[in-house]
């Protein structure tokens, strides 16, 4: 076993270090902008990174369908397809 140690940059302000989701960088690739435009309305994009890379194409498709059907994500069909393609390519099970 090994210890996973990350360098930590702590920005100290009057209220302490501030969290900032603009630092999140999704991997480059076709469909990235579609994901950024459709998937950040309700939560930050680290929800995607965190759930990787263990979902395959079918499971990413199930996630996107859940976002639309259960949580009401306003995503049209062609965008949904581009999102699933991007996610399974960039954040899918190798």
């Amino acid at each position, binding site marked *: *076993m*090994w*210890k*996973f*140690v*990350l360098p*930590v940059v*702590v920005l100290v302000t009057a*209220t*302490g*270090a*501030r*969290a*900032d*989701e603009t630092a*999140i960088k999704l991997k480059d690739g076709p469909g990235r902008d579609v994901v950024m435009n459709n998937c950040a*309305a*309700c*939560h*930050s994009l*680290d*929800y995607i*990174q*965190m*759930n*990787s*890379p*263990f*979902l395959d194409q079918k*499971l990413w498709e199930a*996630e996107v369908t859940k976002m639309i059907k*259960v*949580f*009401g*994500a*306003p995503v049209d069909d062609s965008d949904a397809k581009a999102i699933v393609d991007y996610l399974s390519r960039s*954040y899918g099970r190798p």
Partner: protein
Amino acid sequence: APAHLREGLAADSFSLDPHLPIGLRNIAQLEALPGKVPLIKLTYRPPNYETPLHYFNELFTPNDAFFVRYHLSDIPEVDPKSWRLAVGGDAATKPFELTLDALKRDFMPVEIPAVCQCSGSRRGLFEPHVAGVEWGYGAMGNARWKGIRLKDILDRAGLTKEAIEIAFDGADGPALDKTPDFVKSIPVWKALDPDTLIAYEMNGQPLPHFNGAPARIIVPGWTATYWMKHLTRITARSTPEDNFWMKAAYRIPVGKFPLVQRFLTQETAANTPITEMVVNSLITTPAESEKVRMGQTLTAKGIAWDGGYGITSVEISTDEGQTWSRATLGPDVGRYSFRQWTFPLKTTRKGALTLLARATNAVGQTQNSTLIQNPGGYHHNLMHRVSVIVG
């Protein structure tokens, strides 16, 4: 600063279990929310932050190090002066509203130590991984919760014979209207349990914003999904609550876990709502991969907890589970609390020394050596394993 803070800040590092998803390990970092010490950030919005393991060397988890979990990202700061609690529903004969002052003045205060643990704590350690917030060990904490009995509120509301569930809503809500609001219910018998509270203080201080100010539900023994934060409405129901968060989320397969308390008005043939916590334990000292000198005697330390039956033993193995020896239990401060334990450890051989911890409770439940798979990734209570390097 108190010792735990100095430690936390000096360390400026934290260990992540190598079994967590790589994607999570790449993004997790120490970040401080307003009013909090740096915690392990899993997601920014909604905020999901877990408590670094070393804080569990203390019996009670400091408020400013207590984990933060939200589903939905519209989280208002609630002004305690204008806050109102609405109590009603089709199974209540006398609906009413309360201010925070009236709640504190009109009902008898009680204080209970209890573990608040996210149902998905350790989800990230499931193999194969399941989707969700990929928590490690720290989506939990132990605190002294002070408030009033939910039962006293329900008595004033005059429940009808038809009341089967009591539902809770909080001030937080979804970013888009189409997302189901987070509303949870518990069976009426659990709501009337004298240990089920509406708390306004934790560890002697008002609830921190991110832990549910100004008042939240406390359901000792049950996982935190029912511990509604920023409580605004209590609804007595003659029918089962049927939103997404009850009907689809937070469910476990029927019959797979050795649990006692069941939520029958929500149970189907296939699955049932998660209820009480499974028995569990954690080794907090030594830390993973710590180097120790040959011949040195260490005191291993940790905590154990369960759904409220009470921890009866914690055993330690240093030979991969072939033989077990009893740890010494610390004082019993209440059946819903963490129970501390210590174990003297001799280092007689160079190389890796691996400890396993296993807790057992008063109804004979013990920890698992193989995972009970379930789609939500709940109730992970595999024995905790820590290796030190003897040199």
